[in-house]
């Protein structure tokens, strides 16, 4: 459930407290300013529980909870957070009011906690914030959680640990950037990515569609996704273990300790293992004796697809010190070992091919409000990433999908004997300074510098490499952003920003005009400037309107510029891709008759992407080059609607529809021939998808503080074509069929969330699912997860 859903739910809680359960205690009160003015919209919640409320126009709130010791927290934008411990007894009614002081607001601070999600949502950007905490009892990884956001489609090629690709409003690949706490994740390596990090590591996920704040200093023309990990400095222990179908096991531990003097240690460690031995359906089978395929209907189990990874994340530092509000040194280390079951289509099956990777990521973070002068906030992060990847393909065997094999005389199931190692070092550093001039004006300056250095970065096995491939490839990219926020009043604010991109790339380039290629190290630099504006208006307490626009750029990569001497030709004349992104939207959050709440968020967008950096393949030679060519226009809507009845039932839907079309009239940059695919829908991009879910909560089942929840989700993805829609005889087209699937999750939490057990039945109708052409995903699966959560402050009773 996203926090969006929570907002009305919280409101609901504030109105449903009269439905008292015996043994339940009540807290009610007001949130007022020092001037005794009511503070509406403030969050009041019991720390480390799901019990929350939002103050009404009179600043009033009301909560109900089981007896016990709690910390009652009051948070609202622009005011200091207040915490008060309370001891609730059975059927007790306590009045607690907060008097809050206005604080110097930290604008655009991307690492904020507590009411952060509300703050993110109320920003003028087209952004969805997903609350990860609501899914901590599930077995999901971050990719699975992201798939629940409107406008986002996560496409998976298989089971646990399989490749994921993100489609955000139709943008894919490197056009969408993923960050963790504002740090680009692209350099983190395969051992630490969306397909293996459990949801429990995250506090929330923010999805910025099309228009991206300067804090994410990146050439992300399609949008940005930011995973915010748990930044709370308290003392807690979170242990979980899940197991399920296909011999899948996922233990994890999360712990934090913060002393009174501000010393803080945090640890996250997790492990994923799965055999991924799910059944797949095939229409042909290789006869290993003859090398020919035989038609038929075959159902077989995947037999060489095990995946194992383990990762540990640690942070040590200080909080709330005079010299730093946060100062942490961190180290993340991860490794993975995985079998490779098939090639990019399931036609080709492997039985011995494997890959492995190791990642080490040291990091540093410094954050200080009121640095030197009041209202000046500074944040600095730095990351170094060391990755090593191995690919092993040395077997002299020919396999088929039955797992049968024939010893053969040649090595390498992929056709080439491979025992390769690729190393990759990269870094990123972000410096952000913001200054609140007064109540109406703020400015923020952000600089992100990223870079990499690689030696062998080709996918081609080492034995096929020549001198040029072992030459240095390096790049440094700097994105400097400046934004200005004008807050006319509480109901209006506007954010204007500019971004300057600069890139310096070094790589080997073929300089020979005759004879054999001669490679020498060459350098290129690029710079360009983008800009944008975002504004929002609150018509009233229930209705918010938003509009935003960005002229965004994506710079070409080193390989796109310099190519390699094997498959990709150089093109040093490449220009950055650019896109004009426009969003408009609005949301309604309305309570009816005390018990009924609806929430609707509707966003419409327009994208016009030019100078696409596109791979042009020469089928005859098998070579690839990159050119700037193509225009794509996308118009779409994302809808999210939700209904709540008391605190016992929620119904909701998300729906995405987009019309993304090729708007390039000509076949190629220097051709006068009209492209037959002009105005065709862009191929291989899902354009109509959504989900509907219902959750029923039974509170205090078999004891105070226990909650049983039953969640059912129906998901669908409309049919789409792998290739251009106009081409080919209709009944022969490569189609990704419509997908309909159903998930059921039952969770029982005891003692206010101290003990939890979840049962999941995913895709329980056993539908055949494909996100990618011919790559079948798992069928029906069952998982059980047990979780223990202890918090020193709360002590969970």
């Amino acid at each position, binding site marked *: 459930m996203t926090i969006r859903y929570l907002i009305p739910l919280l409101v609901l809680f504030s109105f449903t407290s009269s439905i008292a359960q015996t043994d339940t205690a009540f807290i009610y009160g007001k949130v007022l300013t020092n001037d005794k003015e009511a503070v509406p919209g403030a969050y009041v919640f019991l720390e480390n529980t799901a019990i929350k409320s939002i103050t009404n126009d009179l600043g009033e709130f009301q909560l109900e909870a089981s007896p016990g010791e709690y910390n009652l927290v009051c948070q609202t934008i622009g005011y200091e957070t207040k915490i008060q411990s309370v001891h609730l007894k059975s059927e007790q009614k306590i009045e607690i009011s907060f008097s809050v002081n206005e604080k110097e607001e930290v604008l655009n601070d991307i690492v904020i906690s507590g009411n952060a999600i509300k703050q993110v949502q109320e920003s003028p950007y087209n952004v969805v914030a997903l609350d990860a905490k609501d899914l901590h009892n599930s077995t999901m990884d971050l990719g699975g959680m992201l798939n629940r956001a409107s406008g986002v489609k996560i496409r998976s090629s298989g089971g646990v640990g399989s490749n994921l690709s993100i489609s955000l409003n139709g943008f894919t690949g490197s056009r969408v950037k993923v960050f963790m706490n504002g740090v680009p994740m692209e350099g983190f390596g395969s051992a630490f990515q969306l397909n293996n990090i459990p949801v429990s590591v995250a506090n929330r996920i923010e999805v910025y569609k099309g228009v991206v704040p300067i804090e994410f200093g990146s050439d992300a023309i399609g949008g940005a996704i930011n995973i915010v990990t748990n930044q709370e400095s308290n003392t807690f222990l979170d242990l979980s273990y899940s197991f399920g179908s296909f011999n899948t096991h996922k233990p994890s531990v999360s712990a934090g300790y913060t002393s009174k003097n501000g010393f803080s240690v945090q640890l996250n460690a997790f492990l994923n293992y799965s055999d991924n031995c799910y059944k797949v359906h095939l229409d042909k089978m290789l006869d290993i004796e003859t090398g020919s395929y035989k038609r038929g209907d075959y159902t077989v189990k995947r037999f060489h697809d095990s995946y194992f990874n383990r990762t540990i994340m640690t942070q040590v530092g200080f909080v709330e010190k005079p010299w730093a509000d946060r100062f942490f040194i961190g180290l993340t280390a991860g490794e993975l070992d995985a079998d490779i079951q098939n090639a990019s289509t399931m036609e080709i099956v492997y039985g011995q091919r494997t890959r492995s990777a190791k990642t080490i990521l040291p990091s540093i973070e410094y954050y200080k409000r009121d640095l030197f002068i009041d209202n000046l906030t500074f944040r600095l992060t730095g990351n170094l990433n060391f990755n090593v990847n191995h690919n092993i393909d040395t077997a002299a065997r020919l396999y088929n999908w039955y797992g049968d094999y024939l010893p053969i*005389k*040649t090595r390498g199931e992929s056709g*080439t004997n491979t025992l390769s190692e690729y190393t990759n070092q990269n870094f990123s550093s972000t410096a952000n300074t913001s200054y609140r001039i007064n109540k109406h004006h703020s400015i923020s300056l952000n600089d992100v510098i990223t870079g990499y250095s690689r030696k062998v970065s080709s996918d081609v*096995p080492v034995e096929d490499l020549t001198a040029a491939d072992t030459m240095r490839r390096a790049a440094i990219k700097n994105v400097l952003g400046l934004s200005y926020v004008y807050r006319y009043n509480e109901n209006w604010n506007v954010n204007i920003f500019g971004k300057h991109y600069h890139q310096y790339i070094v790589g080997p380039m073929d300089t020979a005009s005759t*004879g054999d290629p001669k490679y020498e190290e060459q350098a290129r630099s690029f710079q360009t400037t983008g800009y944008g504006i975002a504004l929002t208006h609150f018509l009233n307490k229930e209705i918010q309107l938003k509009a935003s626009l960005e002229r965004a750029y994506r710079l070409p990569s080193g390989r796109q510029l310099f190519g390699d001497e094997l498959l990709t030709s150089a093109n040093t004349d490449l220009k950055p891709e650019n896109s004009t992104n426009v969003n408009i939207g609005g949301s309604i959050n309305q309570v009816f008759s005390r018990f009924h709440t609806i929430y609707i968020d509707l966003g419409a967008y327009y994208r016009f992407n030019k100078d696409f950096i596109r791979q042009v393949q020469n089928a005859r030679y098998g070579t690839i080059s990159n050119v700037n060519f193509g225009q794509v226009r996308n118009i779409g809507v994302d809808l999210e609607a939700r209904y709540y009845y008391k605190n016992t039932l929620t119904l909701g839907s998300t729906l995405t529809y987009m019309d993304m079309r090729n708007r390039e009239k000509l076949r190629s940059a220097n051709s006068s021939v009209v492209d037959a695919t002009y105005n065709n829908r862009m191929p291989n991009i899902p354009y109509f998808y959504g989900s509907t879910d219902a959750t029923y909560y039974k509170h205090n089942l078999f004891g105070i503080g226990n909650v049983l929840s039953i969640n059912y989700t129906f998901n669908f993805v409309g049919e789409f074509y792998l*290739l251009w829609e106009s*081409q080919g*005889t209709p009944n022969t087209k490569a189609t990704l069929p419509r997908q309909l699937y159903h998930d059921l999750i039952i969770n029982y939490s005891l003692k206010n969330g101290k003990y939890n057990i979840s049962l999941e039945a995913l895709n329980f109708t056993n539908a055949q699912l494909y996100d990618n052409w011919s790559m079948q995903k798992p069928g029906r699966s069952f998982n059980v997860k047990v979780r223990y959560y202890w918090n020193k402050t709360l002590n969970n009773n």
Partner: protein
Amino acid sequence: MKIKAHLWLIPLTVLGLVMISCSENDNQDPDPVEPSAPSKYFIAAENNDGTYFIAVDSLTGGITTTSGNGIEDPNSYTHYAYNGTDAVLAISYRQGNPAVGRIFGLDELGLLSEIGAGFQMTAGFSSLGPFENYLVATRRTTFSDETQGQNFYFIDLENDAAISDKQLATYGILGDTLDCQLVGVVDAGDGTFLSAAEVIDGDVDDCYMLKLDGDANVVTVLNDDRIGRALGQFRSARYSLIANDDEGNTFVFANPIGGTKKGAALKINQGETDFDDSYYFNIQDLADDFTFRKVWHLTGKYFLLEFYNELEPSSNTPATQYGIVNMDTKSFNWVTGIPSIEDIDNVGWPYAGDDLVYLPITTVDSNPVVYVVDPETASAYAGVEIESATGIGGLAKLTY
């Protein structure tokens, strides 16, 4: 659908990169006594990442399209080979993956359809050619004992494209410390086949040919220094420069980049174990000093050569100009009537049939067009045009 067994029993005149679909008598017998089998032409049209397989009645004119037409396949095929006019094999060499192929033919109604479900060649291939009832695909690779050598796949065209494989340890064949890789396959007509050898890190100005038996054992090593190594080159790819005429004599062409020998051809007479000392054909001098990298046999003594576009090419210079040689008269003609090299965007595998050469060419400002070339005059005219496509991969003639 299953292939009809009798199709495979028709005597094979297979050809991969080389084509032979008509007998030597064709030229002399313009009035067939028996009615010929109905036929259609196969076009592998390409549009971006997809291939669209189309059957048309003629290649010499008309218009067809890939819009709403053609069997869609989300793969690109790099080679087309033939089992006479019974079937065409589309084969995809994908670096880093096993090569896969599909076979197409015409059903009883003359509709284009896939025969069988395709085949896989794990170790891939870099060149292929005909040998007896096989299509032989070969490539240098690493063996199970970690030595390197040449792998051969024998695709049995009489047995539902069943594949067997043979290996040849190449180190030392051409000399104690020399290793080599083989490029191109032609049938020597005596139970053996010929392949050109590239000495690894060796002299490009020397021509070696290996004669191998059906188990890939070396029968004879042929050597001649009148020409250089007999293979074409584009980046790391290698192309066959050997082809047979209708009598089964093998012509060996050579024009290596970085070599000093003229681009020329030698002859190995059928059944012989050495080059014909009396035969040498200097083609480069007749071709305005341009050099070539690919060859296809057309009909009789005519062969088509694909030339680099520049006088001093590198290994990644495009090659989109064509000439036809008569190996008997040692004459040469540039192919005329096709677009200029400045206008050509891409070209496909030529196909020889009906005593003509069909040459697919796409220019920057036109749809892909099959040019029809008369081997005797080397003059061409525009044949069938394929609207909506971005290129033509290959062509074939199919009967049913």
